[in-house]
């Protein structure tokens, strides 16, 4: 008997250790990210880093403001495209899709989520960039808009699947109530179903937003990587993540440049962490409210 308890306790201990792994890893990441990144601030002030307009590693000038603005623009652009499309698609799947269409669209979305970002990038580099250049009369198609388009496609699956869950869990009696008032399908969807599901939909959008901020490979290939402050979606730009990928390959290890690139990584890291907590809070609240 004692032996069994011993074994059970050992295993319990090991499993407890395992269960804290996610937490421990998160902590190690924070430590190493900040250890390498914060060294920059012995040289550059935080304000100069966040709001400086110039990024010239050769002269040890590190102003990340253009990268921050690019990141915001790219993300907004991607949301502008993917939110309406994603919510519509989720509504379609739950509310009006016949069975056969659902069985076609669902795997398509899963697959879309599974395609490696590098392949999205190569596709966008060759197709999207070229398609944009002529109609907008641009000098180059490598713009924030191009990155937004490809990011929109990449975050669609997240927005759709979370919105879909949320719309699916809107109680049937809401729909019946609306239909019984003589509402059409669309009135029921737009005035009752979607507003009732809005928490989950917002959570999905927030998660998608986080993904867009953090995505690298697809963006770096199509955004042009221009260090100038972008003023519109049709300008080229350079996001925080694309700057890291672009320059880390040749940054001398342990140099200020190297530290600055880690600093660039800290920004999306923190933003995404906050967004993820926000969305999980929204999702849990939604669940408790319907139950």
């Amino acid at each position, binding site marked *: 008997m004692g032996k069994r308890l011993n074994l059970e306790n050992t295993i319990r201990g090991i499993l407890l250790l395992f269960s804290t792994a996610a937490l421990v890893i998160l902590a190690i990441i924070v430590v190493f990210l900040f250890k390498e990144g914060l060294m920059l601030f012995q040289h550059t002030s935080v304000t100069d880093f966040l709001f400086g307009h*110039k*990024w*010239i*590693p*050769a002269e040890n000038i590190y102003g990340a403001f253009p990268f921050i603005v690019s990141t915001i623009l790219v993300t907004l652009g991607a949301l502008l495209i993917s939110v309406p499309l994603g919510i519509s698609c989720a509504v379609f799947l739950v509310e009006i899709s016949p069975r056969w269409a659902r069985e076609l669209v669902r795997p398509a979305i899963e697959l879309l989520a599974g395609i490696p970002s590098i392949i999205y990038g190569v596709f966008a*580099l060759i197709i999207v*960039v*070229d398609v944009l*250049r002529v109609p907008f009369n641009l*000098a*180059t*198609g*490598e713009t924030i808009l191009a990155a937004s388009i490809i990011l929109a496609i990449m975050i669609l699956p997240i927005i759709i699947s979370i919105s879909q869950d949320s719309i699916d869990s809107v109680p049937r009696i809401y729909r019946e109530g609306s239909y019984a008032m003589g509402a059409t399908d669309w009135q029921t969807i737009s005035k009752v179903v979607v507003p009732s599901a809005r928490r989950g939909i917002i959570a999905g959008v927030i998660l998608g937003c986080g993904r867009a901020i953090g995505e690298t490979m697809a963006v*770096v290939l199509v955004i*042009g*990587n*221009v*260090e*100038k402050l972008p003023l519109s979606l049709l300008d*080229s730009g*350079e996001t925080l993540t694309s700057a890291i*990928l*672009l*320059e880390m*390959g*040749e*940054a*001398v*290890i*342990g*140099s200020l*440049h190297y530290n600055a690139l880690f600093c660039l990584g800290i920004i999306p890291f923190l933003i995404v962490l906050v967004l993820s907590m926000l969305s999980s809070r929204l999702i849990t609240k939604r669940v408790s409210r319907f139950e």
Partner: protein
Amino acid sequence: MSKIIWLRILFLLCVIALFSGCVEDNKEEGLVIAGSTTVQPIVVKAVEVYGKNNPDLRIGVQGGGSGTGIRMVGKGSVDIGASSRELSTEEHLKNPGLVTHSIAIDCLIITLHPTNPIEDLSTQQITDIFAGKITNFKEVGGPDRRIVLVIREDGSGTRSTFENMVMNNTEVSDTALQKPANGAIRFTIAGNENTIGYLGIGYIDDTVKAISINGIPPSKENIRKGEYLLSRELYLVTDGEPTGETKKFIEFILSDEGQILVEEEGFISMR
């Protein structure tokens, strides 16, 4: 019950996988080379051929850029550093023992889209174009096209070579598209008639157009003689005079056989 069997198999696979790496002898590679991505094709090609003759030798090739290569060889983390530029004074001071070995001649060539009729630019014109003072090809006798600059990324050895040779302390325009590799620059230039950029000679092909500078075309002769503005040597860097496998490998690259590989990769041999 079959599910339990499945589970066992899965577990077993995990264990096997975990140890498969360790069971093999985990001796580090015999020869590790790191550094410039420009030099990398030569090194990779050399390893490919050299490795066939020396199947027991393990060679690792890593990128990282010239600066990292030099730094790592100085620290002893790698055996050979690859660099597309000479050592800076700072690097010399830090590691006085570093020895450079020229293995090939490279040249940055000013490149345009094939449909661009411009054949020649002066050094001053190139400086002004890359500084963003000239923004349309018609200002240098070309067609009415807005100029899109395509350059290498911050920190790149190729970029600093170009800026040292051409820009004399003028900053490159911040509207330039930055690309992490020569191939990406070529791809961008080939796909857009508004572009101008610089490419290592090994990357010139018929999708882009190489032009002359100050009337001197980028022929092999001119480059080897150093007359085309942007020629430079490529180096392997060792800590002290090379010995053993390191020495043999560098000798291989400098041999006739090795220099043929250099030419095959589009660079210009030392001979």
